[in-house]
């Protein structure tokens, strides 16, 4: 077990000095981002809105990219390295010979892994000398990570929040504002795109696509940089701190995982944990990506070029997708409602390196309750998908009496989702 004292003792050894990029180790070439046949060049647009170094990292593919000291310090401030726990309570409850470990990204201040890339992108925006950053947010998870990161560097942040969430999630909005962000309900009158929409329909509830368009337009108009929480390779690159730390921590513990599990929205938390293991130590291991059956991208998605954003402003990426216009049903795992899957993860799934499984909401609701009651931590509904898969794998191990070592990413805690769990209780019954 790596407890808190060990974390301090081993901190410098555990916190990596570099990020890992899996692209040179993929089984096949990663199809490049592409501009659509008609219209403006989306790749050219990236150049205007993203911090210079973020672009350089996206397009200069090398296996290891060093993390600047100033950024490492910020990782330490927010609580990296995050702990790894053995889920003994869950193991006992399941009465399984499997040993279950989880990397706890929920220990970070905004409650999830999102900040690993927010801090990096905002740092590079700060290095470019801009005064502020813009972004979009749905439920507020990503927006909180950007708001805190901007404050750490003394930058302003402008978060365009989907209007319906802005109205229904005052807690998240309050958190972002408390961190110092300007939170704007989208569509808004601050952009041409937003005010056009409001002219047509003043009660437009907004969407993530609209919020992205507004955040980009606002950045262009004010000389700010735009930071993206979506599926670009560079986001996955920054998240590799999770897996690199975990690799070291498992070494210190003296265990080697047989199965690595993570839930998947766009793929960044899964990739963050799994990619260093896949690329550097993948032999004989299983990698299981867990999706939502209500957003069935693994079972029904098609591998093709599609826009990563609903607005179609970013370059097209080749990925497993349900189509950018896919309207997800109202499930509570906001982070898994995304229509596509990061290009590198799509390729690894197509090539059979990564397996997948999908679960329905009532199943993950039950798994979340089991985990909360046996381990204490309330998983984010997204992370509860990983918990459900881990429970199934541990029960399989029990059937075969195998001492499988399972490692999963508890990508976020669910304390800010308690209202969602209460709604699930009403929808699916008390457990």
């Amino acid at each position: 077990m790596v407890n808190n004292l060990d974390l301090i003792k081993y901190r410098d050894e555990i916190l990596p000095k570099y990020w890992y990029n899996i692209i040179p180790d993929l089984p096949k070439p990663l199809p490049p981002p592409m501009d659509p046949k008609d219209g403006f060049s989306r790749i050219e647009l990236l150049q205007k809105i993203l911090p210079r170094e973020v672009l350089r990292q996206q397009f200069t593919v090398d296996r290891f990219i060093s993390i600047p000291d100033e950024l490492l310090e910020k990782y330490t401030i927010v609580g990296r390295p995050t702990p790894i726990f053995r889920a003994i309570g869950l193991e006992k409850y399941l009465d399984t010979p499997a040993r279950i470990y989880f990397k706890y990204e929920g220990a970070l201040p905004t409650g999830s892994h999102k900040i690993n890339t927010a801090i990096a992108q905002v740092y590079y925006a700060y290095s470019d000398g801009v005064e502020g950053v813009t972004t979009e947010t749905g439920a507020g998870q990503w927006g909180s990570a950007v708001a805190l990161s901007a404050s750490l560097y003394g930058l302003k942040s402008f978060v365009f929040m989907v209007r319906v969430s802005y109205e229904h999630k005052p807690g998240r909005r309050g958190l972002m504002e408390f961190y110092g962000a300007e939170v704007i309900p989208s569509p808004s009158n601050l952009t041409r795109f937003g005010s056009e929409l409001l002219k047509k329909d003043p009660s437009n509830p907004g969407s993530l696509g609209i919020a992205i368009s507004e955040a980009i337009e606002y950045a262009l108009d004010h000389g700010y940089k735009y930071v993206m929480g979506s599926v670009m390779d560079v986001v996955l690159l920054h998240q590799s701190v999770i897996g690199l730390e975990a690799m070291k921590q498992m070494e210190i513990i003296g265990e080697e995982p047989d199965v690595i599990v993570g839930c998947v929205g766009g793929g960044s938390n899964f990739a963050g944990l799994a990619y260093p293991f896949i690329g550097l130590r993948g032999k004989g291991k299983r990698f299981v990506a867990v999706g939502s059956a209500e957003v069935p991208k693994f079972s029904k998605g098609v591998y093709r070029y599609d826009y990563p954003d609903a607005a179609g402003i970013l370059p097209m990426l080749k990925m497993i997708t349900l189509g950018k216009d896919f309207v997800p049903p109202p499930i509570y795992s906001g982070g898994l409602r995304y229509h596509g899957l990061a290009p590198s993860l799509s390729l690894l799934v197509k090539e059979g390196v990564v397996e997948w499984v999908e679960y329905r909401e009532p199943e993950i609701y039950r798994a979340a309750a089991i985990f909360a009651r046996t381990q204490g931590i309330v998983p984010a509904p997204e992370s509860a998908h990983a918990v459900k898969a881990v429970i199934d794998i541990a029960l399989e191990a029990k059937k075969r009496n195998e001492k499988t070592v399972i490692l999963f990413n508890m990508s976020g805690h669910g304390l800010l989702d308690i209202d969602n769990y209460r709604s699930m209780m009403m929808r699916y019954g008390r457990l």
Partner: protein
Amino acid sequence: MKRILVAYTTLGYPSKERFLEFVSKAGKFGVDYLEIGIPPSFAKYDGPAIRRSYEHVKKLGIDTREALRAVAKNASAPIIALTYLDDYATVLNRFAEELSSIGIEYLLLPDLLIDYLDSYKEVLETLRACGVKPTLFVSSSMPDRLIEEVSKHSEPFLYLGIRPATGIPIPVDPVVVVRRVRKLVDNTLVVGFGLSIDDIANAVNAGADGIAVGTAIIEAIERGGIEEAFKLLTKLRGVLNEL
């Protein structure tokens, strides 16, 4: 060692006559290979300038076969034809035989290793059987193993694209990319896709044997006709000769 200069232009650009003048004189300005883009139905991995040049010649209605014959007769350097396999996948045999009969020695298909990876070896066999040598295009988003494997099949050099699309000045670090690929391959290595003048020395010092220029040529022609492009070539040759 003489550094290689590869000059790209689009077939028939900016007009049939001026194009022929460009290919017949480029050699005098130190160009070692002429890369000639045959307008595809969708130039998916090309940037805005090259896409504009394709649109321009499509509007002129240039007869591809006739124009290619004229290039082969007039070219002042060996020719590498460039087009997308997407348009020829089902008629590759006929297309390659035609190129060969016209006297075009090399063919570069930028989408081959991206969209046709599973059948790339058969494609290479077909080209060779028809007398056309494949020039292969790799990029930094390709895995090490593949770059190593395909390098030995590429003639007269391996083409390394350092940016995601031609001519968009995304701030990549050419040194990092060239170093990585140089370690993997013994073949002659030519680097292209949006190199700036400042990048050239860095790329060569990192291990590149030469450079390929395309977008800058198209943009020079847009600005001041082929004379402007010749000025650019003179400058590039000068930079390369000093290294």
